[in-house]
């Protein structure tokens, strides 16, 4: 009997110290709650693409056609369309520079949206487009892409940026 009691008391003193574990869990839970988002992320970062930091707090709302310009390729909805080098080769003096391959692809996307309107799935073609541009891309490339998008009819451009931590 005495021995049994002894065993019991030693087991007690070496038992799991649960207080610190709970402290740790509480901290993790609070941290995760801070970065919780109900809607999840609509935009995903394309590979090989570093977005610039910005103070903008505007959240992407809907899914639009996505153009991504990395330093070596321009993609539309994650399908490679034209190398960035080719865009750079378009003469800078041109008044109305258009990236032809990109224009063809965007026209196809726009026609699809028009078809959706005809079928009644959409109210009107809103011309929204999301543009993800690598932060190291020169303005020249950005301008040519913007001009092409505008020509096709995508007038409402959203530039994706990385939200800066305060």
């Amino acid at each position, binding site marked *: 009997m005495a021995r049994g009691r002894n065993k019991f008391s030693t087991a007690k003193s070496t038992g799991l110290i649960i207080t610190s574990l709970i402290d740790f*869990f509480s901290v993790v839970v609070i941290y995760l709650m801070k970065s919780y988002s*109900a809607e999840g992320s609509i935009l995903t970062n394309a590979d090989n693409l570093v977005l610039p930091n*910005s103070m903008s707090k505007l959240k992407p709302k809907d899914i639009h056609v996505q153009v991504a310009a990395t330093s070596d390729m321009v993609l539309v909805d994650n399908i490679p369309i034209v190398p960035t080098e080719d865009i750079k080769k378009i003469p800078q003096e041109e008044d109305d520079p258009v990236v032809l391959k990109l224009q063809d692809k965007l026209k196809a996307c726009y026609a699809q949206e028009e078809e959706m309107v005809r079928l009644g799935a959409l109210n009107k073609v809103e011309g929204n487009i999301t543009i993800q541009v690598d932060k190291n891309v020169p303005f020249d490339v950005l301008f040519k892409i913007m001009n092409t998008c505008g020509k096709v009819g995508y007038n409402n451009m959203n530039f994706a940026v990385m939200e800066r931590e305060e």
Partner: protein
Amino acid sequence: MGQVARKKAVSDGGHGGDIDLKPFINFLVVLIPVLMLSAEFAKISIIDMKLPEGRGSTVKKAQTDRPMEEDDKLLLTMIITDSVVTIGAKNGFMPTLFYKEYQKYVSKENRKDEVTVEMDPKNPDKPVMNPKTGKPFSSNERQEIMIYVTDENHNVINCLYTKDRKMLSDAIGNPVQSVKSGDTVYAVSNPRRMIIVNNPADFALSPLSAYDEMKNRLMKIKERYKDASDADDIILVAENQVIYDKIVQLMDIAREADFPKISIAKFRS
């Protein structure tokens, strides 16, 4: 007997399981994965920009159809080239800000390999060498671009900064280089925050960032011309080789200085 047991539990410091923590821990173990699944670590947001309906290139329009006869328009323009930033309005230009550009590269293989170099505007594509491996950095490894204001002789101008990296200006908005205790200075945030200096050691002298100085100037313009009919508009004009990162930073400061309607134009030489 029951009473004795309870007394005992209290006397040994509550060890005797008066609260059973097991369900609480079970709950946390479930909650943490749920939160982790819906946590968003890298927050992506967007900058909204609209082109006028039915027009592809707005740029030419902004440059040529300038309505000169409208008197209350400000037509504020921010211009960036490879070595200069400046602000122009209908009545002329503000003094040009010369800047020196420093780029910080961090190696992807070894995060400790980092180097900050001064960018030569005449030769922007010159590769930057990794000092450890001797190989050039790729443009993906460029982590940060800092632009500092210089005078005409390319000497970097310093300015006092607060501990939370806000530039200090005096009452009329010039950058402050030195303070004594008792001085009144203003931290450049929107709106300006008045600070009465207690201890000059609270502020540190560091190179004046061209972004901060531009924000300072834009805020001065906003204060003065807030009645203009286009007081929310700003046109950002960039040269071809200006890197997108700098354009986003300038759009940021324009928004911070309360010019939310930003248009982008191209620099025509």
